[in-house]
């Protein structure tokens, strides 16, 4: 248990430090609307990070997630608006395709990094076919949902907490979640215990597909239109978010709450750099530097947790 707490400490501390620095720079951000602006784009990134976490949980990595979220956004901005039933069926098919992908990767013992690399072309091509030029409109209900103004807590923060709690219950507290993490830890002993690793991997990938679909829908609800390249950077953002959140690439050691906090930290880093009035030339570089700094701090925490 103490190890889990140490695992969560770094993301929580780095988010707190970054938040404090932002408030210090721009005290007006310390309000309902300020927070809403700061974390506006956090929800789709958090959902995509959870999707990536599902894959990293079973020791794989998904290089196609950004393209997949873009495709979902394109479907949501076209079919889901014009023909809701068809749109829903397409999204369901996409989730099933992800589950099938997990099964194929396991059954044929293929390297996930390569298969998902290939799939990134497939998703990207489909997105381009659906929406050759930027456009489309978000379904009204989706836009309303994403721009809800709940009392006292901004939507972005409330949604992030909800995502963290639900995925924590699913992955950390539930029986099936424990077995899923076990696939990343030691697939052979899970198999010996009578589970079908094939089905478990399909389930993990299916969950990733589900959260990828939710990420794309949330993104369209916020941006109200889509294009085929809208979320390409999510691939790398989501990997960084999982690691920032205390996850590791192997061994099924992931933390859903940490991943959500990691995604919030990445979103906040971008807003923070805006407040710094940094020259646009350096914006991207500073984001990289923040990432390096936070991860360097991880050294201190992992040393401490090894001792504990």
């Amino acid at each position, binding site marked *: 248990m103490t190890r889990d707490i140490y695992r969560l400490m770094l993301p929580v501390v780095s988010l707190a430090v970054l938040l404090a620095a932002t408030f210090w720079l721009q005290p007006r951000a310390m309000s309902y609307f300020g927070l809403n602006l700061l974390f506006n784009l956090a929800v789709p990134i958090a959902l995509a990070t959870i999707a990536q976490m599902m894959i990293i949980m079973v020791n794989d*990595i998904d*290089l196609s997630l950004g393209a997949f979220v873009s495709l979902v956004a394109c479907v949501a901005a076209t079919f889901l608006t014009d023909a809701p039933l068809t749109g829903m069926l397409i999204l369901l098919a996409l989730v099933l395709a992800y589950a099938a992908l997990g099964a194929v990767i396991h059954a*044929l*013992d*293929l*390297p996930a*990094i*390569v*298969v998902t*690399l*290939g*799939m*990134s*072309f*497939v*998703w*990207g*091509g*489909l*997105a*381009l*076919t*659906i929406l*050759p030029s930027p456009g489309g409109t978000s379904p009204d209900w989706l836009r309303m949902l994403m721009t809800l103004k709940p009392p006292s807590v901004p939507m972005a923060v409330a949604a992030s907490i909800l995502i963290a709690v639900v995925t924590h219950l699913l992955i950390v507290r539930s029986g099936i979640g424990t077995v899923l993490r076990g696939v990343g830890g030691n697939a052979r002993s899970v198999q010996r215990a009578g589970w079908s690793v094939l089905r478990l991997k399909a389930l993990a990938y299916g969950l990733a597909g589900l959260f990828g679909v939710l990420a794309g829908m949330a993104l369209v609800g916020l941006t109200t239109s889509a294009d085929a390249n809208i979320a390409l950077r999510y691939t*790398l953002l989501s*990997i*960084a978010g999982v*690691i920032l959140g205390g996850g590791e*690439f*192997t061994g099924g050691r992931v933390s859903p709450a940490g991943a959500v906090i990691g995604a919030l930290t990445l979103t906040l880093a971008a807003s923070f750099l805006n407040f710094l009035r940094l*020259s646009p*030339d*350096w*914006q*991207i*570089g*500073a*984001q*990289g*530097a923040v*990432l*390096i700094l936070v*991860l*360097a701090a991880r*050294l201190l925490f*992992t040393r401490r947790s090894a001792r504990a």
Partner: protein
Amino acid sequence: MPMTLLQKPWLWSWLAAAASFALIVGLTEGRGAGGLAYAALSFGAFAAIVGLGQMLVISLGPGNVDLSIPATMTLASTLALKAMGSEPGTVAMGLGVALLVGLATGLANFALIYLLRLPPIIATLAASLVYQSLAIWSNRGLRIRPPAALAEFATGRSLGVPNVALVALALSIALWIMLERSVWGRWLLASGQNLRAARLAGIPVEAVRAACYVTVSLFAAVAGFLLASFSGGAALNMGQEYLLMSIAVVVIGGTSVAGGASNVPGIWGASLFMFLVVSMLNSYGASAGLRMVLTGLIIIGIVIAASTRRALR
């Protein structure tokens, strides 16, 4: 021995390249075969150079990959072209600048991996953001032309073969000799197969890893330098497509992502294939979207073919 040929991991990429070549030439009834081969060699050369570097890193074992290749290409070529300033007689200095940039980014990447214990994926990703910013800052949206002699070299040919392909070929042969015939190559593959065992056997594994991360950056710098000279100037997004490309050619070429096995001929087959498959789909009139979908499916198909072949053995 037909069986041993079938077991060569590079076979599939060459078969795929040959098949796409035949399909295009079949469509045009033999016209333009020479031009097509020439174009494939020119464009394939850049993919081959970055692929060779990525191959070294991937051979180090799971988790090792360099995501900073595009940023290094852009930064090296931007600074090199700026240093040369289109003046004649500055080519050697420009190449020197590019190599220095490659050396610096390679060392920086490895420092993050080794000193901060960051997973290579994250380390090179974060570092690449910094390199990208440096390139944006130094570029200022200007497009500086390469010196005439350099541009002529990069777009020219010797004995009917594109010069860039000759450079890539020379690098491949040097790397192949190093991998197959030198103790460094053995050390690299041993480290990729089992890092712990290699360390216990007295192999300086950290030096081997450092050498790989520096080499991939140097190769990326050379590729960026040549690409900028080839296309008449450095552009900020010039490296973009080479991120996925570098990983794709390594795996299609038959190098194991589990590490410990590298494959130089396969890199060439895969690089030619990646160009040819797009030309093939183009010449059959596929739309941009369909082209991407088919490219992805073909990549996965080759990986499945290669892996079932492995399993049968």
